[in-house]
């Protein structure tokens, strides 16, 4: 039952937050050092810590955090003093916009390229796609992002270097603002696409090659079905199954990967917030973004499982 699956998320969330909490506290550095005025006396520092509850044992702090989560309170940022929930809520749209549009674009590119590349195995097209995929797989995302930024934004000034929207467009028309968002989104999206597409296209190509050698394709040909129908209907649906699984698992990569990308392109999403929180040792914000992204990832996996059972009649969620 779907309900049971959702219940199963609860212990997972406990596990993830517990481990992150422990790692966070094990890491060197002290949040109070980051934001307290250097002129404050050392005995007053102890008082600041006590006020924040940081003098308590880590376990106690974790349970305190849990208790507040139970009440719907994610705490307040050490740095800005704003409620963490508000901060995250403000950042969520940008992150979702980037990850959902990259997911859609990845799907739009993977299938046609993988399908044709597998169908025309060893052709010039296949070789070109293979070469580009290997190139994409071997470029580290953070490096690629920086290079694109360097070339397209700094040298040729084709794209903005940071942000989500041009701040001067506050009162402009919806259309102008949408164009500005797309303009800002182009480079981060491109970086995610190049990294995400390469492996999937290779994978899709291999599944297509394998599927095309199956009896049911041969049997379809023997019944006079057209190549187009066999490729885009029969082979496509079978090749979509493993892609959905991989994307479900890869969703975490998309969200995790966008932490780095959001940071590089100063994209005002949860990832950027999380990374800055790491550097500032802003524990409440960091825990909040971990909680949010783990829920997003679990939802993603859950949706992948659901759609898997929709397209493969042999799988039924129990």
């Amino acid at each position: 039952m779907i309900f049971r699956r959702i219940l199963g998320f609860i212990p997972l969330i406990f596990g993830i937050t517990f481990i992150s909490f422990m790692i966070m506290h094990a890491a060197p550095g002290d949040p109070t050092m980051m934001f307290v005025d250097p002129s404050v006396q050392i005995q007053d520092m102890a008082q600041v810590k006590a006020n924040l509850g940081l003098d308590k044992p880590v376990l106690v702090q974790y349970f305190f955090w849990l208790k507040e989560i139970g009440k719907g309170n994610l705490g307040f940022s050490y740095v800005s003093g704003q409620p963490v929930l508000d901060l995250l809520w403000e950042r969520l749209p940008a992150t979702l916009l980037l990850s959902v549009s990259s997911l859609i674009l990845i799907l739009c590119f993977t299938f046609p390229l993988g399908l044709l590349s597998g169908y025309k195995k060893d052709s010039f097209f296949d070789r070109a796609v293979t070469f580009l995929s290997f190139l994409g797989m071997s470029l580290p995302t953070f490096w690629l992002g920086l290079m694109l930024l360097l070339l397209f934004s700094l040298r040729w000034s084709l794209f903005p270097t940071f942000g989500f929207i041009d701040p001067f467009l506050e009162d402009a028309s919806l259309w102008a603002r949408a164009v500005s968002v797309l303009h800002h989104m182009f480079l981060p999206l491109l970086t995610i696409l190049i990294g995400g597409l390469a492996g999937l296209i290779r994978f899709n190509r291999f599944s297509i090659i394998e599927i095309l050698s199956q009896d049911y394709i041969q049997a379809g040909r023997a019944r006079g079905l057209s190549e187009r129908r066999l490729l885009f209907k029969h082979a496509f649906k079978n090749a979509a199954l493993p892609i959905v699984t991989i994307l479900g698992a890869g969703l975490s990569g998309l969200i995790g990967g966008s932490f780095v990308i959001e940071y590089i392109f100063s994209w005002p999403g949860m990832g950027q917030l999380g990374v800055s929180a790491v550097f500032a040792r802003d524990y409440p914000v960091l825990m909040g973004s971990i909680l949010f992204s783990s829920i997003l990832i679990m939802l993603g996996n859950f949706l992948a499982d659901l759609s898997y059972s929709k397209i493969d009649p042999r799988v039924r969620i129990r």
Partner: protein
Amino acid sequence: MLELKKLRTLFELSGGKTVTAVDGVSFEIKPGEVVGLVGESGSGKSVTALSIMGLLAANSRVESGEILWDGRNLLELTLSELRKLRGRDIALIFQNPLAALNPVFTIGNQMVETIQEHFSLDYKKSKDLALSWLKKVNIPDPEARFDQYPHECSLGMCQRIMIAITLVMKPRLLIADEPTASLDVTIQAQILHLLAELKDELDMSVLLVSHDMGVVAQQCDRVMVMYLGQIVEEGPTDKIFADPKHPYTKALLRAIPVPDPSKKHAFEPLAGDIPSPLNIPSGCSFHPRCSEKLPGCESQSPGIYSVQGCRVACHLFK
């Protein structure tokens, strides 16, 4: 109706080597005739069938010869001309019916798409036609099966469904490649009975490819025995079974188990292994396993001799 003239089909192996899977096969199938093609696995039966359908694997090709269908050479047709013929005029059913149906589409979906590929019928009429054929092949509750997936049906049921999908186009020639090899004996008998019935109803010819001499004896008007890519004996079924001429045919018949406890040796398995097609013996290719070998057999390939209404490729009948 169908005539093969000196068909030669090659397989290309890596390293430029070639293997001759079908070596100068000639035969004819007349309207309404049921012809058996028998031989051990690896003798080239299935490759002959696939050559006729134009469905050879990418690493194999017809090297020379002609495949005449109503006098038209199938080897000279374009893919789209061939596709109109496939299924409509010449149809093929496979050994493993479950693998020959696409697992992710319903039976109804695959039947309707096949019908609509060849006839311009709307969905309603195609569905009615499909249901009537499911009834004809004795599928209980056709309406329910129509919406089911292949994995929800038994193997025997899948083969009936395959027969329905294939014969709905009323082909003039059905090539059945080991249609019952993957089924239980009782189901085998039912399927063969069904095929014989439908053959009479549709007045079609059948090329029955099988390694099972018993099946062939029951079903066929005429038998062709194949060994290492060549037809070594051909004639009316009753004559071949009552009085086999070629030592290979004799050996095959001796290898059929006889359920008679009074006989000491119920059957005699064929001596030796089928030689590697990479290294076909010189002269008559059967000579290393032959019990009636003559001095010239190693060096000279035999001609084809007519003996009492049969054609035999053996030096014994010179």
